[in-house]
């Protein structure tokens, strides 16, 4: 383990610091709240000559991701950052980046999508991009946002993977929330990420290439099948990178962070910063003798379905917490619930009573009392065997 520097930093500046230490070849980005602090801080580093990065100040997020695709195709290590409507504007190019297997690393500081206009946290932005072909990592706090950014480089660029990675944290809650963080020395980050290994490069004039070419009904299908197969190789790579990072820092990462799942009869599944609130409530409940557990998935894409079933298959009642709605889906459930319900059914665990809690939309506070309510509901479901309402709302004025 290396000696690390302890600082008080918010999540956005943690990501900017990781980007400075990674020193990518190209960053093309457009500012949008609450991601602005990432690119603003990083562009200061560029202006001050602290990095060798070519910073492209583009006119929109569509252009940002397009420039990233161009730079990555040319054979560079490329990073960017966005949020909310900015991510939505990238949508077309997100698919192109993923389909071309370009290992771009992008931070998304989660924010609600308009309308009505809202700058605060929910997960509707990155959940809207969940089928675009990017690996998606969710961070609970500034430390994880920093750590995930560094690991994302290794995951994305792994020669068996070559896929873009979207690294999330909660807008304002951790993006602008100052916490104690441990930062690696620059040289250790450089050593960990290593030098960029090019597979195909448009600048390699001795080996001329065409990228993003015409692909008709005779080949497109094969390329899509190959793309989906790549996801099945991701988990061992994500786990190996997380383990190696742990040996360096003392902070190991895997697919999940769990509490009490070894004996849990009731379980809560929640992403990102709310897992911190839930953990303290679940810990308290366990001290009072309740067999309740917590699962915080770190990886949403690829969706860890078999691992989830191993953890939840014997639970009596499960509460999924979704910070976004899949509009028009089953009872307006959220993406995490829908994926998990599909996984449990597909693996023959359809007896698990599972409910969905929509919470925190547009930055609505989620408090320990809400989690206590969830645990009480789970006890009631387990006792009566009656699942009741499939989708419920936390912190909503009814």
């Amino acid at each position, binding site marked *: 383990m290396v000696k690390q520097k302890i600082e008080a930093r918010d999540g956005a500046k943690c990501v900017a610091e990781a980007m400075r230490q990674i020193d990518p070849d190209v960053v093309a980005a457009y500012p949008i709240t609450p991601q602005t602090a990432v690119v603003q801080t990083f562009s200061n580093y560029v202006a001050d000559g602290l990095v060798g990065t070519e910073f492209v100040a583009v006119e929109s997020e569509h252009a940002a991701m397009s420039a990233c695709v161009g730079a990555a195709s040319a054979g560079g290590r490329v990073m960017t950052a966005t949020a909310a409507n900015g991510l939505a504007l990238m949508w077309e190019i997100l698919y192109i980046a993923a*389909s*071309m*297997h*370009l290992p771009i690393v992008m931070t998304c500081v989660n924010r609600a999508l308009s309308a009505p206009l809202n700058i605060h946290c929910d997960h509707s932005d990155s959940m809207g991009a969940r089928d675009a072909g990017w690996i998606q990592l969710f961070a609970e706090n500034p430390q994880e946002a920093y750590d995930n950014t560094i690991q994302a480089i290794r995951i994305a660029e792994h020669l068996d993977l*070559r896929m873009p990675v979207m690294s999330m944290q909660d807008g304002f809650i951790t993006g602008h929330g100052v916490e104690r963080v441990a930062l690696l020395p620059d040289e250790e980050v450089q050593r960990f990420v290593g030098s960029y290994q090019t*597979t*195909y490069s448009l600048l390699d004039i001795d*080996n*001329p*290439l*065409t*990228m*993003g*070419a*015409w*692909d008709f*009904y*005779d*080949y*497109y*299908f*094969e*390329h899509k*099948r*190959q793309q989906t*197969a790549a996801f099945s190789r991701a988990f061992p790579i994500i786990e190996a990178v997380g383990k190696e990072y742990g040996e360096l820092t003392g902070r190991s990462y895997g697919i999940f962070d769990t509490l009490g799942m070894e004996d849990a009869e009731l379980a809560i599944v929640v992403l990102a910063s709310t897992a911190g609130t839930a953990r303290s409530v679940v810990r308290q409940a366990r001290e009072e003798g309740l067999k309740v557990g917590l699962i915080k998935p770190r990886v949403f894409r690829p969706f860890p379905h078999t691992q989830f079933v191993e953890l939840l298959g014997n639970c009596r009642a499960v509460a999924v917490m979704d910070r976004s709605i899949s509009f028009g889906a089953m009872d307006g459930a959220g993406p995490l619930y829908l994926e998990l319900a599909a996984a449990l059914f597909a693996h023959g665990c359809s007896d698990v009573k599972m409910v969905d809690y929509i919470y925190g939309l547009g930055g609505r506070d989620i408090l320990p009392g809400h989690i206590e309510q969830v645990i009480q509901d789970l006890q009631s479901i387990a006792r009566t065997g009656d699942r009741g309402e499939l989708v419920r709302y936390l912190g909503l004025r009814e």
Partner: protein
Amino acid sequence: MSEGLLNWKEVCPGGTVTEPGSSVAYHTGTWRSMRPVHDMEQCTHCMICWVYCPDMAIIVEDGRWKEIDYDHCKGCGICAEVCPVKIKQPHTVTGEMGKVIQMVSEI
């Protein structure tokens, strides 16, 4: 459709094409529903069709009209449209009056 084509484990990731000039190997002529036919007897070799063809599918040799590259002719009909020569005898392929280049159905 699948004969001679690579399977999903063999294709280059992302559809990257690793050899230059490979569009020659892609036979866009398979898209054609109408086929241009040419009457060499009455052609004046003015080469206006060669100038206009968007797919370089009119083959010229020693300054004279030689043939149509049906592997890459998409059958757009521009050559037949721009052909300025009004033929005096029935067309050697279609038997119709009109121009040196005429369009016929592929079927």
